[in-house]
């Protein structure tokens, strides 16, 4: 079966996120008051062949651990959906 995997890879909490900081400033300058704690990471989408949703999730996790997220600097979350 085909599954759709969506991964969100974010800079680990506590690490400096210069992009997030710059965007936070820019939002303020644009008059969007009240936006803060801006963090910027990567969104990854992919299609996956797997026997079950569990298997798809396990596979996706392995992909994140090995390639999609940098374990030294990033955390990830993922969601799997049948399609």
């Amino acid at each position, binding site marked *: 079966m085909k599954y759709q995997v969506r991964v969100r890879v974010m*800079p680990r909490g*506590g*690490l*400096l*996120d*210069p992009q997030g*900081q*710059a965007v936070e*400033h820019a939002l303020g300058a644009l008059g969007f008051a009240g936006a803060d704690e801006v963090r910027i990471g990567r969104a990854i989408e992919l299609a996956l062949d797997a026997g079950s949703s569990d298997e798809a999730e396990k596979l996706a996790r392995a992909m994140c651990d*090995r*390639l999609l997220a*940098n*374990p*030294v*600097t990033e955390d990830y979350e993922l969601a799997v959906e049948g399609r």
Partner: protein
Amino acid sequence: MTETVTPVTEAHPFEGERPVTSEVVREHNLNDLEYERIVAMLGRTPTLTELGVFSALWSEHCSYKHSKPILRRFPTTGPNVVQGPGENAGVLRLPDGWAVAFKVESHNHPSAVEPYQGAATGVGGILRDVFTMGARPVALLNSLRFGPLDVPRNRYLFAGVVRGVGDYGNCVGVPTLGGEVAFAPGYTGNPLVNAMCVGLLREDDLITARAEGVGNVLLAVGSRTGRDGIHGASFASEELSAESEARRPQVQVGDPFTGKLLLEASLELITSGLIVAIQDMGAAGLTSSSAEMAARGGVGVEIDTGLVPTREPGMTPYEILLSESQERMLVVAEPGQVSAIKAVCTKWELEAATIGHITDDGLYRVRHHGLVVAEIPGQRLLDDCPMYEPVAAEGSAAVARRAARPEGRTGPSLSEALERLLDAPSLASKRWVFEQYDSTVRANTVLPPGGDAGVLRVPGADFGVAVTLDCNARLLALDPYEGGKAAVAEAARNLACTGAVPLGVTDCLNFGNPEKPEVFFQFVEGCRGIAEACTVFETPVTGGNVSFYNESPTGAIDPTPTIGMVGLLEDVDAAVSSHFATTDDRIFLAGTTRGELGGSAYWAEVLDFVGGTPAVVDLAAERALQRFLVGAARQRLLRSAHDCSDGGLGLALAEAAIGGPYVSTGTGAAIDLDGLAPGLSPEALLFGETGARAVLSVAPDRQGALEALAREHGVPLAALGRVGKPDSPFILKLGGDTLSWPIAELRSIYHNAIPRRMRPAGEDAADRGD
């Protein structure tokens, strides 16, 4: 714990702080002798905050406790030295009121953990070291070492480091003009990332990092302080092991945009005369910058960590003092200037906060919202770290390697050997690397990367500056003394090939664990060689960096003291490039060929044999060659000059004929080596690594003048052949044979050697291997 005597100073534990036990002391990498000194100095048990301060300042990285006595042997003075060692960067005098500031730093351990950020923050740090002197950074260089590229993790580190070096320098807008990359098994697990920066200033604008003036205030300028890199200095001062991995500091993330704003703001603060002193908060962050600035000025200092802008709430004084968050500067100023300073910072969108002041009691005092959490005699904090001079004894393995010969190994044909050398990643074109670095921004680049040295003009002046960064670690592994000499000689030769007079040196001494006798031997002998060569060349050492403990579970790295050198081209318009340019120009070899193959690239890369006795470096011959090259450039006798280093004459000739990285085709050449050095085997003739040699090309009508000049300098000159028409073959006659290649074929081998071993960008993370 040691008995408490009469306290000299008073400090209070911060709330919730762990008591200082012997275990805590050990965790801080302080030995018994060191701890006893601390207790004696304070007359009491230190607080945890104080222990953290000592641990950072008495780390190898900050205290140079294993290297200081040896470093004193370097020549550091000379008529052109404006600022010698001890400041953030050395400064040398140039003509017309100009001066050049330059410095090299290692970022090896952070890059082993996180190659991209480790390398990027290394570049950021070295930029700050140079602009704190009041100099505008105008060139970057980098020296890199990795394990072989057939190991996936090495590819990952290489790709990440190059991207990190590039992204930071590119974003800040400082061109990268040179560097080197080499690959050898000893660097697997412990890559080397050395970054060098060169800046220009008006000598009048020079500013040093001496805190002065009781009552003057301290300001923290730039990024907020986070928990990044706490204990980075101690991390850099131990071997990489599974254990250190677990305790590794939180990764520091570079913010080149803020780095650029900080550069502009700092230069504006310095040239406007608003400040007294300024220093980067580098290794050991606020602690080392404040303690060092105060000690240089012979004053006391008081900081309130509660006033330091932080990125996260709830940071302790310990964390704030030891954080290595990037893009921060410490500024000393008169109280009346604070508002003007803040206005400059605001213009550059930077934060500035008053965090302390200078006192007359000579103490290093830290408060946190008023509570004194550390109070240490300031000068003794820096001076009383015990100095060590470990045992130095050459390892028997090195002796055996030097005595060994590749007996019984038969090499491939000469022509295959040359192709293999051109294809060896350590010798091949580094275009894959320097194409990722902006080398033309600021529009002053006269000679970009890809030749012997980078050359830039000084805007508005006739003169220019040449820069290079070199080391052949294989030679040092076999004979650290000769290898040390060779590294300096190669750097000077590279500069002289462009026509520049070598002026001075910055060095990055990368070695293993100095507590091992065989490593300390390498260090002492390597430094002896460097010192001797610098003395003969009259190129004082104006600064540098020592990086010890470059070891991984597989052992120590090869000793790798990289030599950064700057030179002066009186007439930058006369700069000489490395590549043949014009059909029918005459090709010469300057210098004597003796055919030494010990430690050569030919043995290592073609015969897979690392050993032998490296060539003895003839410093007088090097000096004569340098003078001859500079004179020839000045008289505009040369069309090209390329030094012979690893790979010997064969590689130098091929590189010159292959042409620059972006010509559509090389020129080719017809070369006859019979008669050059009768009695040498063809291998020794072609690939021997005698120093003090350079391959030159000359317009036919300048040949006579060149020969006369060579005689004047006592430099042997041998005619080897002629430059071909564009795209003509590369022909070598030697030992009765004629070898010939289409130049496009050699060009393709040379430029594709690295790309063909690497994955495309984006796929390289697959090599991370964890």
